[in-house]
């Protein structure tokens, strides 16, 4: 089983790589789309702004490689912006087209709560997950409702089809999509590579799908 990690200059590549390594993955870090062929697992990390990430992904021609991998029905994982890029459109600093692999948008977390209080952004912190679609046979099959995961973001995904929501979390009364799943495509808004043992358990689960 080989796992391919796409290097398009994103900041958290090293951390994701280390976390997957301790989970026992046999990792190839690739810099060219041709190298993505015949991967058993494909992982796209990502931090920072959507616009610069998707621009780099296109500039390096990884977009088609990702789509080709997904078409093989082999598991795919996008982390944070790596997940957001799966959506159709992002509204972070303007409007950007995503890969449109999961129909939906990337929207700003509202800066006011329902009662009018300031909701600080970025959302930084550890929160637990609640179930969207059932977690059995997914990356969350070992996850419990007590596990907490590390989030750091100001934008979050809103899939058009609620059936693509795998997990939700709450930030100050605002419901955030924490994980998505469509067929063999998985994505997490939180950072499993920075979420301690609970996060590593998710990566291990991804490896054993």
């Amino acid at each position, binding site marked *: 089983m080989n796992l391919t990690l796409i290097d398009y200059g994103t900041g958290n*590549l*090293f*951390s994701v790589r280390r976390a997957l390594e301790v989970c026992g993955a046999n990792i190839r870090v690739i810099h060219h789309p041709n190298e993505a062929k015949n991967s058993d697992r494909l992982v796209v990390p990502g931090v920072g*702004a959507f616009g610069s990430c998707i621009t780099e992904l296109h500039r390096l021609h990884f977009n088609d490689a990702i789509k080709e991998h997904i078409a093989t029905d082999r598991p795919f994982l996008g982390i944070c912006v790596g997940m957001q890029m799966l959506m159709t459109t992002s509204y972070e600093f303007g409007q950007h087209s995503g890969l449109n692999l999961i129909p939906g948008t990337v929207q700003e977390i509202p*800066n006011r709560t329902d009662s009018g209080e300031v909701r600080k952004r970025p959302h930084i912190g550890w929160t637990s997950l609640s179930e969207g679609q059932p977690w059995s046979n997914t990356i969350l099959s070992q996850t419990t409702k007590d596990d907490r995961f590390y989030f*750091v973001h100001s934008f979050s995904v809103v899939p058009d089809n609620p059936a693509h929501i795998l997990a939700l979390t709450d930030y100050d009364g605002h419901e955030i999509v924490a994980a998505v799943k469509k067929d063999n495509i998985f994505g997490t808004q939180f950072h499993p590579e920075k979420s*301690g043992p609970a996060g*590593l358990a998710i990566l291990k689960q991804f490896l054993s799908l």
Partner: protein
Amino acid sequence: MRLIPCLDIRDGRVVKGTNFVGIRDAGDPVELARFYDTEGADELVFLDITASHEGRPAVIDLAEKVAREVFIPFTVGGGLQTVEDIRAALLVGADKVSLNSAAVARPELVRESAEMFGAQCVVVAIDAKQCGESWNAFVHGGRKDTGRDVIEWAQEVVKLGAGEILLTSMDGDGTRAGYDLDLTRAVSEAVDVPVIASGGAGHAGHMVDAVREGRADAVLLAGILHDGVARISDLKSEMAAAGLRIRSTNRS
């Protein structure tokens, strides 16, 4: 609500903190980081106080060592002067960088790094000291008064793109008499990004106050942890008992 131990590093060694049970080398930043991780720390901060040399800041090498072993988020600061320094720290696994004197010397550094790497990884550290009715920001380890009002400086760096403020009360630092709640609240209400309260923690009650009254989003701890006066797991239990939403200690 996050609980964040802070480690001061000089020449690759933890400066304070020796009174631990079950730690072989409390001076080793990675060993200590691992310990705090298992204790339930939500994040870690490493501030390198090694005198700046020319070339690559020492904290970048430290970041790489930590990132190999520890799987919770961490921030590094100390000696990061340029966008290239920041990029190097992030590429070896740091989640955030903390800018203090460098941001005062050249505020555009905050904007440039936030635009390049995202606001979420740019923490601006402010050392605040009471001057009459308000607080001034100090730099160079608290030795130099910038003459800037802390509230205005906090608002300015947030406008430039800082994603978080690490706010240290120099008056409270080391006293263990509690965080400066007036200062913390004043800054927290003046900006729309998270504020980490720092300086003065003596027990869990102080941390609860920092959140409830000071409106802090996170609390930084140093002395009481390093001296073995308190343990993260106990502090967290007490904070949870007081009704704060907090991640319980890591399962192993």
